[in-house]
């Protein structure tokens, strides 16, 4: 296929364009350039906020966005928010414009990259060549992106192989995508093969870092650490390697080093919400109150313009305030967090109350800490739903510490029932019981909860194996109600529904139910092989239209 011929077929005139630049002269220049391509629908914005307003109303085919937009959101934050809020289509071409080579283009973060970085000055000819190139690449990735959106990672990986045959120039991008898909579908050994294949061609830092990530997932933290350090020595701005290196240190229990690495990364690129949050959390853990405070305050400040903003920074800073004996500011922060985030985080009230309890407990106000504990117990009684595992453990620890007994026991049993085959977590729960001087009682409770979950699962699997498929489906449906977040039960439930459809034919409602179960388990713990396999089997069951 001749690329020039394909490029000539692009209808640049009929597309919707958005130009974002704070400099009016540049906006006019880009508009003139687009007009000479025949473009008629060109909108302009002079700030990130203005751009968001337009993006919320209109679907653009092409966005030319300057990185530096003065006060307010920068270009990267506009892109992130547009993607997260689904204001742009996968087919939208996003070209990020900057005055010089941007550090962001080599940071190595996989998410939310624009389709191209352009360096000023951008003349008409340059703009057209880059637009054509992006368009062509979008066509190569179109079906792959579609499969990814459906979470059918195995199909997406096969499509990568097909495209490599036809498009050698995109081979490396396709291999990188394929490796990531293999990781997402829980097959690190196949991802490793892809990275090694790339490294045979050239020393690409992302492939080297990919190998290190697989080592880390495998528990080989020291080897991973060495590779990440090598990557950083080669390319000081490969920031993803810093974050990974810090994680490797954390896994080895070397928190001081992890903190030092994050501090360096935050100096090189201070405007990352997740990085400042990690730095704050680890500094807090190390008792470095000053550093934690700085990181959390920075995190809140940059979060003002970012869709990535997080309540964790508010909670962290509230803990810092508690340790500095300033419960007043802590309470203000908790109120602010609830105002800001109640919309998208349903468990905000609970988490704020937990932090309040911790703040009082750490500042030695045991009376108020106990009061927060009692209030938490009341909140828990209002609903059957429980927060995520980490919050449950934190909450149980706090409740024991302030002298509440029944609620934490119930929470810990809930955690065990939903994770009955996770030995590390069982140990953690037992440790919490031990600390509350309930070691013996805890041991019996852990054992009973574990048995409860495995009995539920085994009975369902038994029905399935003995061919009573309809009964098995029904049994697992009830089991899921009793134990909503148990991965083994969820996977088996989906497996049994797939079996049912394989034997008795496709059923739309069962299909939808299986999909829902699988996406739920993928949210709980992404990147599992069984998820990828079951999604693929489900897709194959779908009757061809």
């Amino acid at each position, binding site marked *: 296929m001749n*690329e020039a011929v394909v490029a000539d077929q692009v209808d640049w005139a009929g597309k919707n364009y958005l130009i974002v630049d704070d*400099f009016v*002269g*540049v906006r006019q*220049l880009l508009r*003139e*350039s687009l007009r000479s391509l025949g473009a008629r629908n060109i909108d302009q914005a002079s700030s990130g906020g203005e751009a968001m307003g337009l993006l919320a109303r209109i679907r653009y085919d092409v966005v030319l966005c300057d990185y*530096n937009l003065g006060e307010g959101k920068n270009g990267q934050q506009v892109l992130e928010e547009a993607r997260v809020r689904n204001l742009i289509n996968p087919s939208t071409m996003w070209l990020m414009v*900057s*005055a*010089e*080579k*941007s*550090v962001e*283009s*080599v940071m190595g973060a996989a998410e939310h990259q624009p389709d191209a970085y352009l*360096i*000023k*000055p*951008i*003349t*008409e*000819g*340059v703009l*057209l*060549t*880059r637009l054509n*190139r992006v368009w062509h690449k979008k066509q190569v990735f179109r079906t792959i992106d579609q499969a990814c959106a459906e979470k059918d990672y195995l199909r997406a990986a096969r499509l990568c192989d097909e495209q490599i045959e036809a498009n*050698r*120039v995109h*081979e*490396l991008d396709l291999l990188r995508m394929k490796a990531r898909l293999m990781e997402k579908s829980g097959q690190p050994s196949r991802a490793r093969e892809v990275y090694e294949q790339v490294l045979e*061609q*050239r*020393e*690409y830092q992302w492939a080297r870092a990919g190998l290190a990530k697989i080592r880390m997932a495998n528990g080989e933290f020291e080897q991973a650490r060495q590779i990440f*350090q090598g990557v*950083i*020595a*080669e*390319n*000081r*701005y490969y920031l993803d390697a810093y974050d990974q290196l810090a994680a490797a240190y954390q896994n080895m229990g070397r928190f001081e*080093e992890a903190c*030092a*690495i994050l501090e*360096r990364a935050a*100096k090189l690129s201070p405007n990352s919400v997740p990085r400042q949050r990690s730095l704050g959390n680890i500094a807090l853990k190390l008792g470095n109150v000053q550093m934690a405070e700085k990181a959390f305050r920075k995190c809140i400040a940059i979060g003002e313009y970012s869709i990535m903003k997080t309540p964790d920074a508010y909670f962290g800073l509230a803990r810092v305030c508690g340790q500095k004996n300033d419960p007043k500011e802590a309470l203000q922060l908790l109120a602010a967090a609830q105002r800001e985030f109640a919309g998208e985080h349903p468990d905000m009230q609970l988490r704020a109350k937990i932090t309040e309890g911790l703040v009082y407990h750490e500042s030695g106000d045991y009376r108020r800490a106990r009061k927060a504990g009692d209030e938490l117990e009341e909140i828990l009684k209002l609903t059957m739903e429980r927060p995520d595992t980490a919050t449950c453990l934190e909450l149980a620890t706090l409740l024991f510490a302030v002298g509440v007994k029944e609620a934490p026991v119930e929470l810990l049993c809930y955690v065990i029932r939903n994770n009955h085959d996770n030995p590390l977590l069982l140990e953690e729960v037992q440790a919490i019981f031990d600390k509350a001087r309930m070691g013996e009682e805890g041991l019996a409770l852990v054992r009973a909860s574990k048995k409860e979950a495995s009995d539920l699962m085994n009975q369902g699997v038994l029905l399935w194996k003995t061919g009573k498929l309809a009964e098995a489906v029904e049994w697992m449906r009830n089991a899921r109600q009793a134990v909503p977040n148990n991965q083994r039960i969820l996977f088996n439930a989906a497996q049994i529904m797939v079996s049912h459809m394989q034997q008795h034919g496709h059923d739309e409602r069962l299909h939808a139910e299986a999909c829902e179960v699988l996406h739920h388990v993928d949210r709980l713990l992404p990147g599992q092989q069984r998820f990828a396999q079951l999604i693929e089997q489900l897709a194959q069951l779908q009757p061809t239209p």
Partner: protein
Amino acid sequence: MDDPLADLQNPAPNTHDLFLFLASTAHDMKNSISVLSGTLERLLVDASPKTESAYPQMAHMLYQTKRLNDNLMQLLALYKQVGKPEYPFDVQPLELGQLVEQVVAIERVLLKSRGIRLELDYDPRLIWHFDEDLVVGVLSHAINNAIHYTCDTVRLAIREAGGWLELRVEDNGPGYPPALLKAGAIATREVAGGVNFLTNSAGLGLYFSSEVAKMHRHRGRSGSLRLENGGAYGGGCFILRLP
């Protein structure tokens, strides 16, 4: 401590402020140059020497604007320590067709306005790995330079030979003066610090190009830069070799 990053010196706080100030000023200057060169190109495309009496002066203005842009781009790259791990170096595979298309898009109006022909000799399907922005910067700088030295033709020839990519910018002028050839030899020496920016105005571009060349490394080999007279037309030759 076995952490290789630990011995990195932290920059003084005022260095950071200065950097932010310089970056925002550079950003502003780039905007001005964008508008300047964009407007000039537009005027030149719409005009011809017959209809516009100031056509040669406009063409010269565009040439000078390109020089200004080259210098600013090179200064920024050097400020960001091109050639060191501190530089955001970004190697990607690219078809030569896409590289050349980019260079031609940048130079087309200037070449036409100066009445200079650009001859191309390359395999558009060949894929090589390099930092596109840097190499485009080096090549367009070399072509702008050749426009100054040539009679009426500039030739961009790219070929693969023995695991190297050789990119040649040649012209059909009288060749580089001895002083420039000497500056080229000094600037491209293995040891750094051989450039005298004060006495040699070509030094910046040569130094930048040679740092870009050296940054490209593969299997123990690194890129190089060479100036000579000769080539297809016996004029000046600017030769970039990438592993």
